[in-house]
Structure formats: structure tokens, C-alpha cells
């Protein structure tokens, strides 16, 4: 299965990739929502999880979420916003739009993994040495 990481920061995409890739996902990366939609439409049935920034050029994370949910015919892609946005009103807007969970930046690997567990993302955790 694929995880799609959408963030305009290459550094943040790299950080998220380093956490999510070892869980057994193949990774797709996009620099904004529009690019993310194009990648998603190519592999929709294979994408289980999208990690989406909010504040991005071209198409922001909220618009991406709205579009994905509107296009969704069957199945349910897990959408997690990874953002600095903490205002309750904004978070409510995102939840209404179809976001499954939030992770606030800054975050740790453990926090992200816990949030992924909460929304039922399948994980192949590496065995500790």
C-alpha cells in the first residue's frame, strides 16, 4: 500500500517519510494539494493514507481534503493533517471536511505513530533489536 505525503517543505516530507516508510508503506510525495490529487488519482485504490500539510501554495490542505472526500466513490482513504494549525474553529472546519485526525507540528515519531494507530492505519512495525 501507499502513503501519500503532501507538504511544501521537502524537509518535512523527508521527516515524515522516515517515520512512515518503515511501517511498510511505499511513499508518494507532493509539494501541494493539486500535485497530491494528481498522484492520488493515478493510484487511488492503492493509497491507504494521506499525510497533509494545511498551509501550502497552489492548493492548501483543506481544499485537498474537501476534493478527495467529494470524489470518493467507495472505500475511505485515511486523511491526517500534519500542521501547525491549532485554532479550534479551523480544526472543526477540517473535521467537517473529512479529516480523520490531526498531528500538530512539532511532533515526535511516537506521537505520529499513536495517531496512526487511533485511525486504524495498518502498520508493519519493525522488530526492535
Amino acid at each position, binding site marked *: 500500500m501507499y502513503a501519500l505525503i503532501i507538504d*511544501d*517543505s*521537502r*524537509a*518535512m516530507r*523527508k*521527516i515524515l517519510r*522516515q517515520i512512515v516508510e518503515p511501517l511498510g508503506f511505499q511513499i508518494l510525495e507532493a509539494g501541494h494539494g493539486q500535485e497530491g490529487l494528481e498522484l492520488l488519482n493515478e493510484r487511488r485504490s492503492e493509497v491507504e493514507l494521506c499525510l497533509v500539510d494545511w*498551509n*501550502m*501554495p497552489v492548493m492548501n490542505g483543506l481544499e485537498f481534503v474537501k476534493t478527495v472526500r467529494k470524489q470518493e466513490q467507495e472505500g475511505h482513504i485515511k486523511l491526517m493533517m500534519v*500542521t*501547525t*494549525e*491549532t*485554532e479550534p*474553529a479551523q480544526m472543526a472546519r477540517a473535521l467537517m471536511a473529512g479529516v480523520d485526525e490531526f498531528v500538530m*507540528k*512539532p*511532533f*515526535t515519531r511516537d506521537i505520529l505513530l499513536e495517531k496512526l494507530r487511533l485511525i486504524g492505519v495498518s502498520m508493519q512495525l519493525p522488530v526492535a533489536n
Partner: protein
Amino acid sequence: MTIDQQTLQQVVTDVCSGMLGLEVEPSEKDNAATGDALSAVVKISGGWDSLVQVLAPRKTAKAIASTMFAMNEDELTEAEIRDAVGEIVNMVGGNLKGIVEGDSSLSLPCVGEATGSAPFDENFKGLEISNSCQGDPLIVRVFDRSRCES
């Protein structure tokens, strides 16, 4: 809630140490170190009108980018170095925005050479903290535009 030095320091520490594992601690300001530096700025608009700047000498910027990209400093491109500093100011600005009451929005980060420390200069009167990040200087400034005297 308003932003004071202690709050700003806590946010910077959470971002740099808590998430990225960088060694950050308050330090005396090193004016000489800001000569060849990168400036990353985000604008907060709405309920709280302000600018947040991260001023990172190139050595610091490379150390940050090296950690974020998990690459050796000599392998980093200029775009990667700027991206890393931009993400730091994005996270600091976003967290500060969340602390202050009122509905505000955060701009995308703008990263450039820090010539004259634009948009601030030596007469800067806002909030400023100086840190040692991986042993090198890192300055973070907040300019509350609603308190700006015309």
C-alpha cells in the same frame, strides 16, 4: 495570551529539540555571526498582526538542514538549506499563532539572504531570543505590528 521571551523560547525549544533533536539552548547574542546568514520570515495576519523571523548564520542553517534531511552538510543543496530554515520559522510562527487569542492566518515562509536582517534592522525593538543551536547561533525575532509606533 501575549508572547513573552519565555514563551518564545519554549516554542523554539519544542520545535528544535523536541521534534528535530537539535541541541538548542539560550545564549548571548553573537552579532558578528549574523553577517552571512539566512533570514526566514512568516507573517501572521488577523487577530494578531505580526512578523516572525528566524535568523540563521549559514553554518547553523546547514546544521539544521543536515539534521532535517539526514544528510551530510556537504551534500545539501541551497534549496534544501533554505527549505529547512523555512520550515523552522513555519513551525515557530504557527505555534505562536496558536497561543495568541483571535483568528489569525499564517503566510508561507519567505527565505532569503539576511542582508540588513530584513525586514528588521539594528533598531529592531521587538521580542528577540538568541540561542546556541548545535553550537552555532540562532536568533528568533517577533515583531508585533499592532504595537508599532507610526
